[in-house]
């Protein structure tokens, strides 16, 4: 663990609407309430999607990995995962590194993927009536 990184993950909790969110030091992003408090999460979650930017974004070098992770209570975080790129469904541990979130896989190489995946809300949406 390098400087700036700390174990666990600090999340915000809103006393008014009970939303959980990041960053912890602002008002609730859902209802705007100022009565929020920080709590510590183990920071374990599932990769919803991941990709690698082949052309590095400005200020970064080499292929740049990105993943969207859902940790407990539905909080979603955009993270920079440690290599190799964890595919969808991978169980990861998220940690704060300054203003950034990073994540490492909790699964050993060759483990079966996809078991812990979180379906999108839209997966259960009823089909539309076809036009005409």
């Amino acid at each position: 663990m390098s400087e700036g990184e700390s174990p666990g993950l600090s999340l915000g909790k809103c006393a008014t609407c009970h939303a959980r969110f990041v960053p912890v030091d602002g008002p609730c992003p859902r209802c705007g309430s100022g009565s929020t408090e920080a709590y510590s999460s183990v920071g374990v979650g599932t990769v919803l999607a991941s990709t690698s930017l082949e052309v590095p974004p400005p200020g970064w070098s080499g292929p740049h990995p990105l993943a969207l992770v859902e940790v407990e209570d539905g909080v979603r975080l955009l993270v920079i995962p440690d290599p190799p790129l964890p595919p969808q469904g991978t169980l990861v541990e998220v940690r704060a590194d300054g203003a950034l979130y990073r994540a490492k896989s909790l699964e050993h190489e060759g483990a079966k993927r996809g078991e812990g995946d979180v379906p999108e809300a839209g997966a259960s949406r009823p089909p539309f009536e076809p036009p005409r």
Partner: protein
Amino acid sequence: MSVRVASVGVGRFGKRTEGLVDLAAEAAGVALEGIGRKPVDLLVVGTMLGHGPNGPFAVLPRLAGRLGLESADGLRVEAASATGAMAFHVAVQAVETGRATRALVVAAEKMTDRPTTTLTGELAAALHESEAAHGATMPGLAALVSQRYLQRNQLPASVCALATVHDRSMASRNPNAQFRTLVTPAEVDASRPVALPLRLLHCAPISDGAAAVVVEKGRGPATVLGLGQGFDSLRIIDRTDLTTFVASRLAARDAYEESHLTRKNIDVVELHNAFAPLAFVHLEDLGFCGPGEGPGWFERGWVRADGRLPVNPGGGLLGRGHPVAASGLAGIAEIAAQLRGEAGHHAIARRPKVGLAHSMAGLGVQNFVTILGEVAR
């Protein structure tokens, strides 16, 4: 009060040697010719990046001067990649209220004189700062959305090529399109990875270009029937479902409601798919198809010029090109040209009565829907 599109002007998209104001003046000139140089009392201009002669400044007065519109009112708007659609909505509202009688709307972007990495950085400035800080870019976030869409619907990544192949085929009929050559699914799938599942040919190109439209009081084949827009959270982490754009659904709901029409009345559509698989998401969000059905619409040819719902008859963002601010207005201009019977070689098989143009800012942060057509009598 009815407002109609009286004329349109779209210049050639692609790599152009002219500057921002020249491109804007060229498209505007065509639109003004289209109304026989009748007087215009409002000029609405949109550009996102603002790569003008003095950077983002003084684009509006320069253009007004070039067009001889010194006595008109002038407004400038910005809504990232939906700038052109916002400019149109602003002009329609001004004419609707009677503040203006005839408005010229122009949206232009100059992009090809900057290196790709510079542009990627400028476009990423439209994302939330906390996500940009992680190195997120538009293609990066669009890749995450695309992956969720494919996974939710159990579709292979190969379906993404369908939207590119379609747009390029439509663009081959449009003399103003950036890409006039066809591509095969194999060529799309062999293009270099940008952010998998997205490859180079799944992504809209970097383009220069401008579009212009004149709106005025009155009725015609391209009367404004409904306008809608919607916002969504700037941070993608705040969205509970990545496989839909709430902003599109809100915009579509408002536009359908105002027009007293449903998706069943729409004869032609322009979609804002800067990334190929987003075309499938947009077809769902606008109510045309059910979850995961989009690729089937492309496979069966339903979106072709002679299909049940022609999509992107001008080539869309992947074929016509994507000068970011201009795209939203180019889509509206395309629908108006189809309705007015002025689409030339890219006219769809049967002249439409009602058309819909969809435009998206950023990754679905502020989306616009515009429905044009004949007024039911």
